[in-house]
């Protein structure tokens, strides 16, 4: 059978970051145990028990206390098989050595850390509180305890972040003993502190300059781009996230989590009270074949590997090259896409205008 992932959302945080629009709540002990009970129940209710990867995201999963963490991992343990990817998101400030030991004990083999930037002024603006010393400490602890597959997130285009600061950030992040870097262009979206404070995104020209610099420099340091915003040492791509982009199934449990099972996509409520009452699913979309194809292309083209024409045919019984003949021809002529080894690929230098290309291709 094909792969299926399990995503577990922990919406609690000790601080709310200025750019974050995920489902999140300030950590409050009184909700946690009931929340974890609901998570357990939600997984059971799905009647699914086989997953090729588990990803615990947030929010800030590492904001849970050691006891709560053990409880969470006890719930997840039965679904984890050795050698499968078991990833956990954490913040430097609350990922203690004790918690790391617990993670290791329960089989977590990948940790993703919200580093964002090394610049102290910018971190303050983001409402995050860690410093270089802490970064090194946490990463060393992880490695010492045997969790060596480590991702750090880097954000660029922050207000006040000039090229010099970015250069510094890139230099420092690439010298860490980590396997994976995700870099995100800041986007100011509703329901965030930045949005309320009317922070403006930088000009696309600037974003592009930063992005091109990041892609080039990370590559020089051995981190290859495999998706628009994701870079890894060879073999260390995020197995779980690849599921999304390869249009494979996943069960998402917890607040605001999304699932894709069979021909349906669901998303959960973002209201904690509703969720705790067991009123979980807020939206449900039944996918037509057209929708499936749309998602397949929209997601697959985010990857450097692009989409497989064979797989498209197998899944949808249709020839991608015939169905999109004129569009592909035009985009090929404009060097926006290319056909290579049986795959349709967005040309390397144009991945950053993917949505522009998708509009041409899909409409």
């Amino acid at each position: 059978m094909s792969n299926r992932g399990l995503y577990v959302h922990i919406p609690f945080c000790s601080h709310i970051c200025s750019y974050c629009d995920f489902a999140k709540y300030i950590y409050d002990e009184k909700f946690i145990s009931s929340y974890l009970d609901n998570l357990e129940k939600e997984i059971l209710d799905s009647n699914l028990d086989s997953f090729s990867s588990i990803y615990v995201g947030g929010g800030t999963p590492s904001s849970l206390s050691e006891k709560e963490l053990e409880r969470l991992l006890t719930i997840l343990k039965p679904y984890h098989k050795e050698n499968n990817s078991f990833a956990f998101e954490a913040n430097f400030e609350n990922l203690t050595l004790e918690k790391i030991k617990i993670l290791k004990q329960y089989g977590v083999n990948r940790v993703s850390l919200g580093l964002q930037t090394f610049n102290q002024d910018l971190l303050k603006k983001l409402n995050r509180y860690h410093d270089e010393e802490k970064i090194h400490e946490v990463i060393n602890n992880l490695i010492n305890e045997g969790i060596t597959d480590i991702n750090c997130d880097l954000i660029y285009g922050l207000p006040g972040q000039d090229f010099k600061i970015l250069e510094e950030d890139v230099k420092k992040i690439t010298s860490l003993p980590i396997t994976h870097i995700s870099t995100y262009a800041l986007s100011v979206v509703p329901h965030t502190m930045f949005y309320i404070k009317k922070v403006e995104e930088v000009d696309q020209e600037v974003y592009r300059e930063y992005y091109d610099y990041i892609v080039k420099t990370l590559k020089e340091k051995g981190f290859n781009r495999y998706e628009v915003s994701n870079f890894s040492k060879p073999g260390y791509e995020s197995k779980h996230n690849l599921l999304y982009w390869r249009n494979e199934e996943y069960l998402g449990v917890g607040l605001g989590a999304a699932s894709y099972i069979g021909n349906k996509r669901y998303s959960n409520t973002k209201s904690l009270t509703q969720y705790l009452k067991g009123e979980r699913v807020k939206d449900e979309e039944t996918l037509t074949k057209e929708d499936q194809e749309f998602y397949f292309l929209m997601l697959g083209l985010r990857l450097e590997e692009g989409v497989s024409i064979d797989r498209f045919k197998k899944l949808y019984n249709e020839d991608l090259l015939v169905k999109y003949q004129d569009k592909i021809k035009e985009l090929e002529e404009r060097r926006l896409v290319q056909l290579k080894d049986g795959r349709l690929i967005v040309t390397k230098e144009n991945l950053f205008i993917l949505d522009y290309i998708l509009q041409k291709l899909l409409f």
Partner: protein
Amino acid sequence: MKYDKQHIRNFCIIAHIDHGKSTLADRILELTGTVSKRELKEQMLDSMDLERERGITIKLNAVNLNYHAKNGEDYLFNLIDTPGHVDFTYEVSRSLAACEGALLVVDATQGVEAQTLANVYLAIDNDLEIIPVINKVDLPSADVDRTKKEIEKEIGLPCDEAVGVSAKTGLNVEQVLEEIVNKIPAPKGDDNAPLKALIFDSYYDSYRGVVAQIRIKEGSVKVGQWIRIMNTGQEYLVTELGIRSPNNTQVEELVAGEVGYLAAQIRDIQHVRPGDTITLKDNPASEPLPGYHDLNPMVYCGLYPCDSRDYPALKEALEKLTLNDASLKYEPETSQALGFGFRCGFLGLLHMDVIQERLEREYNLDLILTAPSVIYNIYLDNNEMVTLDNPAKYPNPASVKEIQEPYVEAKIMCPEQYIGPIMTLCQERRGVYKDLVYLDDTRRQLVYELPLAEIVYNFFDKLKSYSKGYASLDYELIGYKPGKLVKMDIMLNGDSIDALSTIVHRDFAYTRGNAIVRKLKEVIPRQQFEVPVQAAIGGKVIARSDIKAVRKDVLAKCYGGDISRKKKLLEKQKEGKKRMKSIGTVDVPQEAFMAILSVDEDENN
């Protein structure tokens, strides 16, 4: 039941937008039991959705109501609704001519607004008895005394007995009905004189043909009689007469003083024009009622389907619309950039807007409109005169001896403090000052001769913003005058786009060219590569701006929860793309073709 003249009242309601005309009309309908509350859709008289949405009445509707007055007698009220915009002044004047009186509705929280005045003056011109009605007196911010004083001062209408009402709650509306009985004169007219019936509106009905809404001024008409429409000379056999209350009720005869409708299997709405007079074929009136004139389109624009496969649907929709709208003209044309479409003529910009919206909503068409143009007269070297309603068809400049453009006499009414900025606006628009009339202590009327093309070029919006909405504009075509006019081409990526060509005055070409290329840069989305936009006259580039290349267009994070949202976002963009036209590799949105209308030259200074 039949009413004698003494028990008929024909009236209309004059009000500024939002002052409550339709709400008052609804209450009157309700109070007279014409429509029960249950079937009363909000604002019954404005029957087109578009009208209801914009709060303006475009098409006239007449309705007959029965009222049992306090004096114990029954009256027949004919309420004739009027549109309220400069494009339709003629139609307003024709519907006013069908009445003996008018209710002037003024919002007690707003006072008298400029636009109301133009229609009040039209009513006074038509000798109507005007009854002031102060509306919205239930609102805390209502100032009834001040409003009364304003009406007295600005219109010269005594307001001691003016009724204060709330059309919304129905407060005192009955008193208004009594005023209609007591103050508006009963219609006059001799039932036995030769028939003179004023057509104030018409519409097409697929069973009855064109239906004329009429007011009998003299004489009478019966089903089965032959009629003649005096200015067009057409003759028809009357198949149906009726009144609207508000649904059609058939009658055998309409006599002097009455308002009703007439059907005669008329196929062509062009034969039943507002303002024309119907008489009988036998025993005709010696002359028609005064005030009739032809309504000719003042502005033209190209109408194209976004999707060229919609051309037949557009054609059919236009055919249907012209069944009901005699002032809409269209003929096929082709554009290199836009493909097959139609050149359409309208009474004015609002008319154009209304038609566009109806085509898009009622016929579900996505359209591209080119910037509106007036009709130019071009004199060639060989002394031949050609008329030009599409700048793209401008003849070889070398063969043009002279080009003339239509001028209007514009009357602008405004409070005195706005005179300065409005005069500046008129000068900037090549206006020639004619007169300044002191209407009263504070109100002035400016008279200017202006090229119609300048009025079409967002003059009205400017006027409104220069006068904080207080100025009103009325204009009349006065003839053609020569001007230093040239054709300006717009080039995208070096290719001239015919649908974007305009005629401009040489002295203003540079500013306007600059404004247009900037505006185009703003509305045309970024493209794969940088695209130059240039304005050129006779091949010489006078302005340039560059549409930038798209550099970042991607969602940074796309994980489980983002995926459905991303698809929705893309689909929303798809809707936008449907309204784009690909010219070469450049996607040009609909509004680009109208860019010329919304440019703000001030931004360049």
